[in-house]
């Protein structure tokens, strides 16, 4: 599926993805998702479309451990978050809840570019520019968690926490 690129800068914090002032909406995730990334780009939550991509720079998702951050991005219909690097807790949370977090060179992707993700091939296709951006495979455990639908499904399937 092809989706549009939403460009963000370096160091997008979880306070910008889903601010603490909306803590009272954490029991109502669809409402919370209506504020996704609004402190970074006000129009994002109302204009993002199913299949779109969040494209960050360095250190995407820095700050808190709130799993709500990747969850609201996923609930907006985003296919994947692409960034040059991720903050460690956000990365782990994204994989755990089944949102692909892809480390790749995002510098040549422009706002609005049409992108297509080929996860198992390790390729993001920039359909607009007719270029391909490759990314290294994830660790085998992370890959298995993502492919099996997140950590809860993975642990339930294996009946235990095991390393692949």
């Amino acid at each position: 599926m092809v989706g549009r690129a939403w460009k963000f800068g370096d160091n997008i914090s979880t306070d910008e993805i889903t601010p603490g002032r909306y803590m009272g909406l954490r029991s109502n995730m669809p409402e919370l998702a209506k504020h996704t990334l609004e402190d970074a780009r006000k129009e994002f939550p109302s204009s993002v479309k199913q299949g779109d991509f969040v494209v960050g720079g360095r250190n995407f998702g820095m700050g808190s451990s709130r799993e709500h951050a990747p969850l609201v991005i996923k609930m907006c219909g985003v296919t994947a978050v692409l960034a040059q690097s991720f903050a460690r807790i956000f990365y782990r949370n994204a994989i755990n809840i089944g949102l692909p977090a892809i480390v790749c060179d995002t510098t040549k992707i422009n706002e609005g570019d049409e992108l297509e993700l080929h996860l198992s091939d390790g390729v993001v296709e920039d359909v607009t520019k007719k270029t391909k951006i490759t990314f290294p495979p994830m660790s085998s455990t992370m890959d298995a968690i993502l492919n099996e639908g997140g950590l809860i499904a993975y642990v339930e399937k294996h009946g235990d926490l095991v390393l692949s």
Partner: protein
Amino acid sequence: MTGKTLAEKLIGSHTAKGSASAGDVVIVTVDYTFSHDAAGLLLIQQLNQLKRIPSGVDKNRTVFFIDHAAPSPTKELSNDQATIRNYALNNDLILSDAGNGICHQVLAEDYLSPGDLIVGTDSHSCTAGGLCAFGTGMGATDIAIAMKLRKTWLRVPESVKMNIRGRLSRGVSAKDLILKTLSILGTDGATYKSLEFDGTAIDELDVYGRLTLTNMAVEAGAKTGLVKSDERTRKYMKEVEREKKWKEIQADADASYESEIEINASELQPQVAFPDSPANVKPVSEAKNVKVNEVFIGTCTNTRIEDMRIVAQILKGRQKARGLKLIVTPPSKKVYLKCMEEGILEKLLQAGATITTPGCGVCYGAVGGIPADNEVILSTSNRNFPGRTGNPKAQTYLGSPATASATAITGYITDPREFI
């Protein structure tokens, strides 16, 4: 065979094999797991989805805190907190309710010992490293599984050695040291790594200051921050009545570090982080013309009793600046009581401070003290990202309790050495 870093030792002792090296991906047993009112609801939902795996929840080592919005300011948060409170009560787990304090502070006071491994749904879980316990933050899903299975998986981090030589001078504290460290590393300079603090200035630093250092390791992206367990750690364990749980832990002399960074503490001046990043740090002298509307003294980064004594020393017999809001939030009930005993509260109240319920307070932007549009806060907390204190149109500077106290008096960011 090369020696082990603190991270390798602490993780290794929790593996089936009994040892681990940087780069290994391992399953570890966990000594404590915890959550709080900002993540607890999601965590309980995830726990309820785990039906097949057997429950190994340890009732004496699983803690739920109500600290992020304490006491609850809205009916929605009250309902969330009721769910969390009832879950803890119905399952006979440990409940640290509103007013008891911030998770990291209460864990250090009542539970953690050197050598422990703890994971929780809070990024500042790395605070535990000030007691030489391995702590790291994760999301609700990871912690739900860690609670139920009493284990988690970790990649053993490479370590960066922060060699802090010399001696901190009067009016300069651990907060200034960690802000200086962040100015060198940036907000992603230690991503996935362990920051290991050592050197003569660390030898002389009591545990309260060490907790300030390790608390902000995550601000450089680190998985954790660690300090050895020595006689000063023993002194702390004695103060919190757990001396029997003390043990000495040092990194091996031939341990392998990815890099080593040296800071001369003797030359360090008070530091301030400018908006909107804890790594946007300059000496306090470069901030002296910044007018401040609100001073917040609190959080898991600072305001242990030793910090509160410094605040009281500066504010005693003085008045806060006209029109300035001064909010002081003790980090725990125990610190609050100690402040009462020592007459600290009276000095703060006489100076014009508002004292609020122990908890995260202004730092999280979910309870009182939210700034107005275009206002400037000087905070002793760990983060000043846009919107952090509840209003994206306000600006936050970070500094030490001493800097915050001096600033409260003048109304402008002020070098605390003028008042000490």
